[in-house]
């Protein structure tokens, strides 16, 4: 059986997951050796390097959006899972409640404190701070001490008609900024000045008090991972979606084009005038429509793939929706302790380290 190498078109078609009115088609990746007789799909690092592409759409400390193109979902998913569950951060883990006269229960208060994201000097948080095993004594290199000591009192300066409790009383609201860090030992070197350990958002409300109520708490912050508790996760969300592809197969003109544009989120579909050349081309579908508006795809990445356009009879046969199987658009939102970019890079390193560890272990196993 002579083998015909796939055409460029076929290569493209293999990358697309079809999205129809009710169904999806072509959902499986076929780039596995043996799937197409005569074709070579074996792992080749150089081939991977040539086919793999990164696009960065946004790279802010708290939010990054980027695309990985040319990799398998199993790899993309590994990075996403690692970002959520395996990149360590520091969070409050032990809460010693000396006094809690507030209406919020001890355990609820402890849970709220644990979930407050903290930040501080990168070197101190990532290199100096070490893991603390269950039975370890708290030391400067594995535990950061924090205190929260607030007492609510009447404010004698408040006007008699005042109704706002924040003015009527002192410390009616307890915020994350009221937490005081108590540095010990070498922590002073790493967490002083602009490297101070502090809540990412100082205005997180922890509790509300009334005169006579007080909170006196000491806390221990340790290093942990998201798989133990979500409070240790460095990301608020880390997710990916597949790149949408919109293929307008037949011209959509005039009022229809405007209606078609409204089927998509803003910026996905644009309107252009049909040019003279297009109108003169026989068989293009534009004959005699010179100057009319036509729908063109501007930015498919912004599409949510709502399939709204397929609900309209007039567009049903004029558009083909799909998604690119190997184009992953990530959105990484950091909680503030580690920069988004760093979180992704660490996830790649983490996967590599995992593989490395097992490579060594495998040798031990064989021995």
């Amino acid at each position, binding site marked *: 059986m002579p083998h015909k190498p796939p055409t460029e078109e076929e290569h493209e078609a293999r990358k697309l997951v079809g999205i129809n009115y009710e169904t999806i088609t072509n959902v499986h990746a076929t780039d596995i*050796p043996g799937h197409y007789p005569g074709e070579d799909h074996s792992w080749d690092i150089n081939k991977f390097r040539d086919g793999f592409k990164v696009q960065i759409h946004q790279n802010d400390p708290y939010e990054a959006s980027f695309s990985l193109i040319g990799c398998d979902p199993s*790899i993309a998913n590994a990075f996403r899972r690692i970002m959520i569950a395996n990149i360590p951060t520091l969070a409050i883990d032990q809460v010693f409640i000396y006094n809690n006269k507030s209406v919020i229960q*001890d355990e609820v208060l402890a849970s709220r404190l*644990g979930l407050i994201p903290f930040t501080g000097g990168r070197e101190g948080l990532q290199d100096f701070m070490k893991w603390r095993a269950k039975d370890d004594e708290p030391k400067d290199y594995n535990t950061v001490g924090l205190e929260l000591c607030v007492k609510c009192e009447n404010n004698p300066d408040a006007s008699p008609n005042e109704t706002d409790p924040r003015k009527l009383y002192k410390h009616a609201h307890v915020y994350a900024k009221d937490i005081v860090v108590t540095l010990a030992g070498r922590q002073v070197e790493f967490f002083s000045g602009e490297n101070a350990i502090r809540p990412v958002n100082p205005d997180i409300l922890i509790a509300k008090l009334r005169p006579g109520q007080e909170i006196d708490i000491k806390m221990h912050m340790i290093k942990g991972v998201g798989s133990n*508790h979500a409070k240790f996760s460095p990301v608020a969300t880390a997710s990916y979606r597949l790149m949408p592809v919109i293929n307008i197969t037949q011209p959509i003109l005039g009022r229809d084009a405007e209606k078609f544009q409204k089927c998509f989120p803003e910026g996905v579909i644009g309107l252009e005038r049909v040019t003279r050349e297009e109108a003169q081309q026989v068989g293009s579908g534009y004959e005699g429509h010179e100057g009319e508006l036509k729908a063109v795809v501007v930015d498919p990445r912004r599409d949510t793939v709502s399939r709204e356009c397929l609900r309209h009879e007039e567009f049903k046969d004029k558009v083909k929706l799909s998604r690119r199987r190997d184009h992953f658009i990530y959105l990484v939102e950091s909680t503030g302790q580690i920069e988004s*970019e760093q979180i992704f890079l660490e996830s790649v390193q983490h*996967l590599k380290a995992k*593989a490395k560890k097992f490579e060594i272990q495998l040798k031990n*196993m064989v021995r």
Partner: protein
Amino acid sequence: MSSKVRQEGASSDVEMGEPTSHQPEAEDTSMMDQDDEENEEAEDEYEEEEEPQRVKLLPGSTATAASFQFLDEGHTLGNALRYVIMKNPDVEFCAYAIPHPSEAKMNVRIQTFEGTTAIEALEKGLKDLQDLCDVVTEKWVAESEAFKASA
């Protein structure tokens, strides 16, 4: 929930017995006294701590058809590893499974054609995965620099 319980437990009598022992001045000074060497020793201890063997060959395996059990691993490594091993043309079959969700175990089954062994295929898979990570980092860093330069 587990953390809540732990947190609650931490604030119970055991710790309250000598509450200030964790953050006291006495300990502060002891930490100050700790010189760098001592600290490094502690760090070294962590690194040198012997890793328990976390991968084993399951019974019933032959040279070309074997099942491996990974402890404390899940879909993250399982699926990624399955993919790179399947990319090996000498591998006839590869799959991974997590037999029970409440056991932190992940099984990988590899069957190869004659000429190679399942262990070799697994080793190649782990190596390929590391190479892949290097390429991703390399491309990401290059693109990130270009992005920052253009911004």
